[in-house]
């Protein structure tokens, strides 16, 4: 037991061209990221409608608001996240994972890999933010965890959360395709000289995605400040969908600008 099924790249012209770049070696990270985003654009546009993807993002923004309530666990239960009283970091993240998993099962006919990627991006974001915002001089208590999460409801921290989420998502989308091919291009004079260099490449892609999504911070902060505070709106799934749509379009544009293709834009 323990079988793993690996994927293959699609056989369309755009994907064949990407394999061509990789085979030629010496590829710029910005160019490969843009080429993959371009080739996967159609699939992504369809996948954005995946209801579990929207839930992964919607729940992520709701969690900090629940943390502002005195009874954190009860407030989380209201949005479908079930955790023990005063949840620890791991328990909170496990509750989030289970809630998105339920949404994936309930919305099964429309579920794609994007919701799984979004769940992972959400977990990574929560884990990083809680650790960053928790006390460093002593081991964080359960109360510290709640307080740390509550701080994410500010507009400043929402911008940080949104950037982290979309950076993780974009990076995963790039590697979702790249990982199917990259091992075939290992060796002297090739795209990656050694297996260790695949990790270096992965680091470079992460950095590229972090930089590309930096524009999300100001945009998200504005969007959130206006909707959640200025207008006092309850941000529902429909509003989340609109936000995600604009976010993807902005990121897609930024990826292009940062690539060689963008020099002519």
């Amino acid at each position: 037991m323990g079988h793993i099924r690996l994927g293959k790249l699609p056989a369309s012209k755009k994907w064949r061209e990407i394999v061509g770049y990789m085979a030629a070696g010496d590829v710029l990270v910005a160019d490969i990221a843009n080429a993959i985003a371009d080739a996967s654009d159609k699939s992504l546009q369809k996948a954005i409608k995946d209801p579990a993807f929207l839930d992964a993002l919607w729940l992520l923004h709701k969690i900090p608001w629940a943390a502002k309530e005195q009874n954190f666990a009860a407030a989380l239960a209201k949005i479908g996240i079930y955790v023990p009283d005063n949840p620890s970091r791991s328990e909170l993240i496990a509750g989030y994972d289970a809630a998105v998993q339920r949404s994936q099962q309930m919305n099964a006919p429309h579920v794609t890999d994007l919701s799984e990627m979004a769940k992972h991006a959400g977990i990574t974001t929560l884990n990083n933010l809680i650790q960053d915002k928790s006390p460093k001089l002593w081991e964080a208590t359960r109360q510290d965890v709640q307080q740390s999460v509550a701080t994410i409801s500010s507009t400043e921290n929402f911008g940080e959360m949104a950037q982290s989420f979309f950076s993780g998502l974009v990076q995963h989308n790039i590697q979702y395709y790249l990982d199917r091919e990259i091992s075939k291009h290992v060796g002297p004079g090739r795209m990656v000289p050694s297996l260790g260099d695949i990790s270096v490449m992965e680091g470079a892609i992460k950095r590229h995605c972090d930089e590309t999504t930096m524009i999300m911070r100001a945009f998200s902060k504005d969007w959130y400040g206006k909707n959640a505070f200025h207008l006092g709106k309850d941000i529902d799934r429909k509003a989340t969908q609109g936000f995600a749509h604009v976010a993807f379009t902005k990121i897609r544009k930024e990826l292009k600008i940062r690539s060689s293709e963008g020099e002519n834009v």
Partner: protein
Amino acid sequence: MKTFKFFCGGKTAPNGTQGKVVFLDVQGTNHNVKLKIEDISKGLMSNIPDVILDLIEVASYVYCADQKTKRGSEMLTDMGSDWRRDMHFSIPVRCPDLWNKEATISSLRDTLGFLSDDTYTFEFVPATSPLATKQLYIDFTDHNIAADDVALFSGGIDSFSGAIDALVGEKKKMILVGHHSAPKINSVQKGLIQSLRGRGLANQFHFVSIEVTNKGEEPVEYTQRTRSFLFACLGMAIAHMFGKDSFTFYENGVVSLNIPITKDVLGARATRTTHPKVIRGFESIFSEILGKSVTIKTPYEWMTKKEVVLRAQEHGFSDLVGETNSCTRPRSWTQQHRHCGICSQCIDRRFAMLAADFSANDDGRKYKVDLLTGDRSADREVTMAAAYVRFAQDFKTLSRNQFLSKHPQITSALSSFTGMTADEAEEKIYQLYMRHAEDVMSVINKGFDDYRTRLIEGTLPSGCILSMCFNRHVIEPAETPNIHAEFSAFMDGLQPKRCKFSVDRKQNRIVFKGDFFIDGADYNLVNALVDSFRSAKQNGTDHTFVRTSNLAVTLGVEEASLRKQLERTRKKVHERLAVDQGMVFDTNDFIENKEREGYRLNSSLIEVALVDLEE
């Protein structure tokens, strides 16, 4: 998502049934599911209640249906939506009340859903025609054995070491249950059983061999994600016959948790056969239908494969370890090669064997492709091995704090360990995988020592694992410390932007930064509001609204048309400014509307000369 409707046990499909219809039957004229349980004692015949026969049939139908219906291609078109299937079953059963309980149905649906990524719907109907008798599936014999425990026996190293641990280490009497769907697998299991008997353990265990396959038809889907459901149901059935409320699954923790080794492997594309959440789900299904608490024991859940291999050595059975087999490609086996050396199980096994220093007991020549020096450059074969090693390399340098962020897939297991908090589970999983990574790296390390000369001479194939680890020459400049934090702070400190525009009267356009402009009816509408906006800005006064009726006359349209035009213009401008400039506009932020007063351009807008727009 493809929809499949399975009508089982002689059920017919109603007229107009949507989706692909498949008929499955374990008996009768349309008999196409082969189910055979060998060597059950006659004395146990009365211990086989109807619900157990139902369980065996349900599991067989689910397993055979899984193999009969194809998932989408490996290209994962439309972000993997075709990987998932919609599976509907209609099954006649002997105990419909037990199967139709909400708790049974939801446990089945949730567990199989998580196990396979498919969606399951069950309709259990009371059997109207005679169902198969127990004699149809089960070969009864005269022997009698009492058992302390029942364990599943696949013929791989984990279940073999488990059997040794129980028989020799704990001196238990065991029932070993083996499932096979191919003769080569059956022969591996039976060979090992013979060897155990030859070592004086014959009176301590009994082997029950079970065959479940699609009869007379080749499978079209090889992923077999529901195989462990079948295996567990068979284990439960046999345990129940022996009066047990529990049975044992021997599987190491690394394979059970099966963290994906590449980013395209999502969900159940890395099998979850013995994932803790699945094991808890199986327990829940069995407890519901049997009306008592059932436990599935997984004693190796905190061991690496190397540690499992060493269990056999501890009890003096190292020499038999080489007879075990986990290869998923039995069709590729020859007299000389018993392991393909390419599939994930072969790679995992061989790393464990070498890490445990078992090369004398696990003959490397029996692997078609050698783990460290075999050429894997033939297209796909390289990916699995390269990803496996890279995963270990990365994990070795992973800090405890980064663990969940780097491997978020592990989260689904955290709440599924009995008697352990999520925090404790996270810590133990991290330690388990760190030991696994160390095992893998120790094999690479030793490989460098063993093949140093050939590496220096460059005579190893470029597509072998050792060569792929050895070519490093990229120098990556280190990231400036804090650059991310400084950049983030700069972005966070930016003030909200104000929208600038210009009126291009030559081309009748309203132009914005970037390459965005509006023209035609959109231009006419904005242009009609510009004069009052401009004069108010020049005079420093609050500018007036243009009445709807006056604006409609100016533009030569009906008021209703004007309102529709306004919506179109706002939508166009709001969407583009959000994307191009990151400006979030509400309804009135570009063209403002006040009830009973009319329309005006929002006073926060800034009009600039056309040439100044790009500054």
